[in-house]
């Protein structure tokens, strides 16, 4: 690749921003640093970035608002860097169109891995798995809600999903009737969780089936398609 990946790093804390920039440069990236939202905006106007790393908590205009600006005006993917771990805040960030989040303190290697996943997805022209589904979907008596990232059964009871399972189910439901092969599913779910890398797609599918199929051995909802892939069967209604 002749083109060096260009990263915009926005964080008010120089103590984190500077070593992180150094690390990323060492990994072969080109990095521009911004200590607040207004500097970030002027840099966004001046350069073509491939990806933005955004701190949520910043004095002045915060990361959420800057994220909205970036996702509205450009196609540049955004990864949130957050010191908060409250589940709701992660979801808000993802709802605003961020591609991923990572919480402090994080492993720089994992950050780089996630950057790679997101860029590969963008390169392939894959759609964002999140923030694009509106309210959610209804299928085979189930409701998948994107605002709270929850799966609800016919009795209104929430069924717990791991982040990976949620991603995979969302991918299948939003492309109902289409066959998704393992590579495509891996793309969508990878990089979401620290331990998601080596988890086989088949394993995730069987866990999902255990939770949503009435008979996991004879699946009615998530069908296996010969020749490598999975497909969601049945009617799907967008909410």
């Amino acid at each position, binding site marked *: 690749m002749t083109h060096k990946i260009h990263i915009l790093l926005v964080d008010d804390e120089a103590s984190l921003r500077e070593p992180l920039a150094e690390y990323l440069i060492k990994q072969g990236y080109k990095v521009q640093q911004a200590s607040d939202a207004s500097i970030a905006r002027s840099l966004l106007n001046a350069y073509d970035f491939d990806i933005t790393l955004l701190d949520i908590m910043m004095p002045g205009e915060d990361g959420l608002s800057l994220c909205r600006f970036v996702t509205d005006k450009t196609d540049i993917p955004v990864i949130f860097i957050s*010191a908060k771990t409250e589940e709701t805040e992660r979801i808000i960030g993802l709802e605003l169109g961020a591609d991923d989040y990572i919480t402090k*303190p994080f492993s720089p290697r994992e950050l780089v891995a996630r950057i790679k996943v997101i860029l590969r997805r963008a390169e392939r022209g894959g759609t964002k798995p999140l923030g694009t589904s509106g309210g959610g979907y209804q299928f085979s008596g189930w409701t998948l809600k994107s605002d709270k990232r929850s799966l609800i059964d016919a009795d209104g*009871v929430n069924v*717990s999903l*791991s982040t990976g*399972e949620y991603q995979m189910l969302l991918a299948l439901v939003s492309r109902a009737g289409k066959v998704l092969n393992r590579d495509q599913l891996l793309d969508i779910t990878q990089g979401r969780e620290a331990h998601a890398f080596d988890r086989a797609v088949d394993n995730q599918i069987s866990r999902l089936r*255990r939770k949503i199929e009435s008979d996991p051995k004879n699946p009615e909802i998530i069908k296996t398609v010969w020749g490598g892939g999975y497909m969601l069967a049945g009617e799907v209604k967008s909410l």
Partner: protein
Amino acid sequence: MIRLWPRSLVGQLLLIVAMMLLLAQGVNSFLLYRGAQSQNLIESSTAAVSRIAFGLDRQANDRPGRRGGAMRARRWGQLKYGSESAVTDGMNRLPELEARAGQAFANMGIGFSDIRATFTRNLTADMSGHLIGANRGEWRNNPINRSMGDKRMPPETRGYVIISAQQADGQWVSIASVVRERTPLMIRTLLFQTITIYLLMLIPLILLGRYISRPLKSLTARAHNFQPGDSEDLAEQGPPDTRELIRAFNAMSGRVSSMINEKDVMLGAIGHDLRTPLAALRVRVENVEDDIERERMIAGIEDIDHTLDDILSLARLGRSAEQADPVDIRSLIETIVDEFTDLGHEVHYQRGDKQSALIRETLVRRALRNLIGNAILYGKAADISVEKSGNKLMIHVDDDGPGIADDKIDAMFEPFLRGDASRNRATGGSGLGLTLARAIARDHGGDIILQNREKGGLRATLELPIK
């Protein structure tokens, strides 16, 4: 023992007032009864006095042989003449009656040198022929008693009044008169009075009691369900004392809320201000060449991060923005079990019947994760099972470790205390795991229970209430 003492303020107030009213009524009716009794005595003695006066008046021409005289004597009683008084020295004399009789004789212009009166229950044989009112049939035939529709037998004889008077010549003239009971009528009157007073007193009292207790009830409910940040003050109502109490409560909850808000702001700042340098350190650690050294440093940083996480969660508990939702317990357990098996730990769970509970999922996940984490830390594997008992759901986490000495079980919930005192930080965990798990369980109205298993190992149970 049956609890007769009511627990509510109004109930106690009503009971006390009712009891005092009953007591007052009792005293009152006792006095009335006494009054009626002496009234009876006076009536009877008046009859005796009249008979004596009447007898003396006719003494001169009253011929005992005449038939009419004998008839009258049967009805009115024959006066007894003698040198001795019928009221002997041993008898209990009634000075009040004696004074009344003396007054009555004086009014009629009859003078006696001495007058004696007494009340006795048993008439001596020599007086039984000298008795007024012995014929009970006359009581029934009395037109007054008949007009009242009174079909009862005349009241029983209660006793006798004996009046004895000494004439100037030293002779005593004596007569006895029946005194009758009057109590049956009294009890009715008393009951009627009591009920009337109860109705008149207790109804306003109930209303007053409610006026007092309603604001107290809402205050109690508010105190029970106090949530820091309840911006709306409780309305001041009820009597002035209660209003003052509500005002004080509102002020206090305001202070508590602002203190807790301050704490939250501070914790948020701590979380942010510690995590950022920690993140910077984590990035810089990547520059360390020595692999072993670098891994140790990374483990150290992760340890600090987990402790920070636990402290913040514990401090923020009860202020979670997360809502309680009905959650399928099976898939909740599966999700956590999968996390552990993905890391290579041995955790078993067999999916059973569908069971849901109203919980804050993120928090309960955390509690369960801590219990399973402990089981793996102290044993090698964890076995998870779900049991339903009444309105409780119990999630058991069993391990095959050494268990805990029975007298140390309570201490396990103390923050920063670990099962084995010799353990150092290398074994991981902040020492807050169980404290946090219990706080989460209790926040949901449940609890954590630790007990040693018969086959060895420890059973940690997360109890959650279900509808």
